[in-house]
C-alpha cells in the first residue's frame, strides 16, 4: 500500500523531514507518535500534497503510483484521505453539498458515474446515524459554529462517505471527550478492512486504546527512530519521548 523512502521535506527552506522511511501494507493500522515539532503534521501534509511543503529528496508511492507527482485532488481520487487536526469552516456551503461535490469530483476523476440524489441521501442518512450525527446538522454550513467534537465527527463522516483506501488521522483525539472519542473510534474501526490501510498520528496513547494499531513508530526530528508493536505506545506513555529526542 503506502511506501515512503528516504523522504526529505522543507517548509520555508527549513528541513523538517530528514530521511523518513515507512511502509504501511494493506489491511494494517500504523500509529505515528512523537514529541511536538517532530514533523508529524508535516508528514500528513506532504503525503496529501499541501502547497508550501517542498519535497527535496526521496519518494512516496501508493500501490506503486508516485503520489508526489499528483495534485492534492488527484491523490484524493486515488483514495488518500486526511482527517484534519483542525477541520476548516466552509461558510454558506451545507455539509451535504460539500460532501456530494467532493464525492462526485472523485468519481469523475476515476471515470465513474455521478452518485444519484436518492443514493447519496440514503448513504448520508445511514452514516450519520452510525456516528450519532443529527441529520439536520448536515444541512448547515460545514463546520460553521460546530463544537470541536462535532467537527471531528464530521471528518469521520466524510471519511465514511468518501470511502478512501488510505486514511491519515491527524490528532483525531484532540478536543474529544471520552464519549465522543468512543463514537469516533467506532467509526474509524468500522472502516478497517483488508484492502485499506491507516496512519494514525497522535501525541498520546489514549486514542490507541480504542483504535488498536498493528505497528507503532516513533517520529523524532524528522525521522522514524524506533518501531515496534502496540507495547511501544505503552512504553512511551510511561517513559516519555526523552530518550528518543536524545537519540535523534
Amino acid at each position, binding site marked *: 500500500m503506502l511506501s515512503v523512502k528516504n523522504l526529505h521535506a522543507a517548509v520555508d527552506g527549513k528541513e523538517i523531514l530528514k530521511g523518513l522511511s515507512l511502509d504501511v501494507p494493506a489491511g494494517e493500522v500504523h500509529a505515528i507518535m512523537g514529541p511536538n515539532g517532530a514533523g508529524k503534521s508535516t508528514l500528513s501534509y506532504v503525503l*496529501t*500534497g*499541501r*502547497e*508550501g511543503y517542498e519535497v527535496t529528496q526521496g519518494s512516496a508511492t501508493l500501490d506503486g503510483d508516485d503520489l508526489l507527482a499528483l*495534485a*492534492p*485532488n488527484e*491523490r*484524493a*481520487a486515488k483514495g488518500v*484521505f*486526511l482527517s*484534519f487536526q483542525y*477541520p*476548516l*469552516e*466552509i*461558510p*454558506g*456551503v451545507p455539509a451535504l*453539498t*460539500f*460532501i456530494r*461535490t*467532493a*464525492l462526485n*469530483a*472523485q468519481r469523475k*476523476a476515476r471515470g465513474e458515474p455521478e452518485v444519484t440524489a436518492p443514493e447519496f441521501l440514503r448513504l448520508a442518512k445511514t452514516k450519520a446515524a452510525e456516528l450519532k450525527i443529527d441529520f439536520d446538522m448536515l444541512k448547515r*454550513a460545514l463546520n460553521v459554529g460546530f463544537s470541536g467534537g462535532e467537527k471531528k465527527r464530521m471528518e469521520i463522516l*466524510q471519511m465514511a462517505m*468518501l470511502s478512501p483506501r488510505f486514511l491519515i488521522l491527524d490528532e483525531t483525539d484532540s478536543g474529544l471527550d471520552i464519549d465522543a472519542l468512543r463514537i469516533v473510534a467506532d467509526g474509524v474501526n468500522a472502516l478497517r478492512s483488508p484492502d485499506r490501510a491507516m496512519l494514525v498520528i497522535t501525541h498520546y496513547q489514549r486514542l490507541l486504546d480504542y483504535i488498536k494499531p498493528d505497528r507503532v513508530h516513533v517520529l523524532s526530528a524528522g525521522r522514524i527512530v524506533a518501531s515496534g508493536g502496540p507495547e511501544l505506545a505503552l512504553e512511551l506513555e510511561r517513559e516519555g519521548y526523552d530518550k528518543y529526542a536524545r537519540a535523534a
Partner: protein
Amino acid sequence: MAAVKQTVEHVQSLEKYKHGFVTDIDQEFAPKGLNEDVVRFISAKKDEPEWMLEWRLEAFRRWLVLEEPTWAKVSFPRIDYQDAHYYAAPRKKEGPKSLDEVDPELLETYKKLGIPLREQEVLAGVEGAPRYAVDAVFDSVSVVTTFKKELAAAGVIFCSMSEAIREHPELVRKYLGSVVPVSDNYFACLNSAVFSDGSFVYVPPGVRCPMELSTYFRINAAGSGQFERTLIIADAGAYVSYLEGCTAPMRDENQLHAAVVELVAMDDAEIKYSTVQNWYPGDPETGKGGIYNFVTKRADCRGDRAKVSWTQVETGSAITWKYPSCVLRGKESVGEFYSIAITNGRQQADTGTKMIHLGEGTRSRIISKGISAGKSSNTYRGLVSAHPKAKGARNFTQCDSLLIGKQCAAHTVPYIEARNGQAVFEHEATTTRLSEDQLFYAMQRGLSQEEAVQLLVNGFVKDVLQELPMEFAVEAQKLVAISLEGSVG
C-alpha cells in the same frame, strides 16, 4: 500533442469572455462628436415630438456646465466625449413590424447569446418552464420586443422607450426625469441629452404582471457608446419583476455605457429589478479595453407600503460606477439592495446603494458581497439616511468582502446620516481572504483548485444568489465561476 494543448488553451481563453464576438452588420451612425446638432439628429432619427427634443436640448445645455465627478475610487484616462458616436443602429428598411422582418444577422446574434426572441422558441421549452418577455436593445435601438400582445391583454405596457414616447406620451411626460432629474449628475445629464433606447414598462393598478420582463442590452458597434433609458412604473397594488442583461464585444478601446433607470412604485406596489451585468471587462493582463459602466439607477417608493428590490450581479466592465438607490417616500415603504460585485484582472468597481428614508416606518435592507481577485479594486459605497420625518425608520446593512490572491483591494465606505432620534440603523462588515487552508481542505476532499474556488465563492454569495429569479440564479452562478477562472495560482 503541443498543438492539441495549444488548441485547448485557446478554447479556454475564448471561454473566459464568451460574448466577445462582433456581429457584422450594416450600421448607420451619428457623426462623431457631441453638440446640439447630434442631439437633434438622434431625436429626428426617432421621430420624436417637439417636447422631447426640447427636453434633450435643455439637458445638453446643462451638461455643458457640469463637471465630471472624481470622488469614486476608480482611475482612468480622461474621456474625450467628442471622440465617439452617440448613435449607432443597424440600417433597416422602414421599421420592421414583425420578427420575420428583423435582420437574420441580429436574430443569429441573440441566438448565440442564448436570448430567445421567437415566442414559439420560448414556448417550445420544457413544459411548465417559466416564460419571460424580452426587449432586445442593439447599440442605440430596440430591435424587437416579445410577448407584447399577451402582456397588453393583461393591461401591461412593455415596449421600447422610443415607442413609448410616440405611443404613450402622457405617461412618459409624467414620469420621465421624475426620479432622476435631468441634472442629477454628470452622466445622468449626458444620458438625458443623448439617450437612444431602452425599455418602458407600465403596470396598471392591481395588476400582477403575468411573466418576467427582461431587456437584453448589447453594444456592438466600435467607437460608440450606449445610453439607454429605462422607465418602469408599477401603479397602485401592481407587481412586476424585471431583469436586464448586458454584453459587448472584446475591443481594445474603452466604450462608454451611461444608462439611467427610473422606477416608480405607487401605493402597495412592488418592483423587483435584477441585473446580470457582463460587459466586456477589458484584457485581464494589460487592462486594455472594456466598458466604462457609469450608470444611475434610482427607485421612488412614491406610495405607502410600496416595495422595491434591486438585485445585481456585476461581473463585467472595466470600470463600474453604479449605486441603485431607493427613495423611501411613502409610509412604511421598503427598499432592498442585494449585490454581488466581482472584479478580476484589472477591473475597478465602485458600487453600492443609497437608501433615503423620508417616510414614517420605512425599512431597508442591504446585503453586499464584493469579491476581488487578480489586480482589481472593489469598493462598496453606500448611504443610509433618515429624514426628520422618517420616524421609526430601520435599516440593516451587511457588507462582506472576499479577497482572492494578494494583489487585489477591497474597500468599504458607508455613510450613515440619522436626522431623527427614532431611526435604527445596523451595519455589519467583514473582510476575509479566501484562505489557502480552506482551498487545501476542499482539494484534499477531491475538488480541483477551480472547483474549490467556485464552491467557496458560491458559499460566500449564497445570500444574494437566492434573491434572483430562479432561472437566472443558475446563469449567475455559472457567470461567477467564469469570472473567477484563473484567479488563483
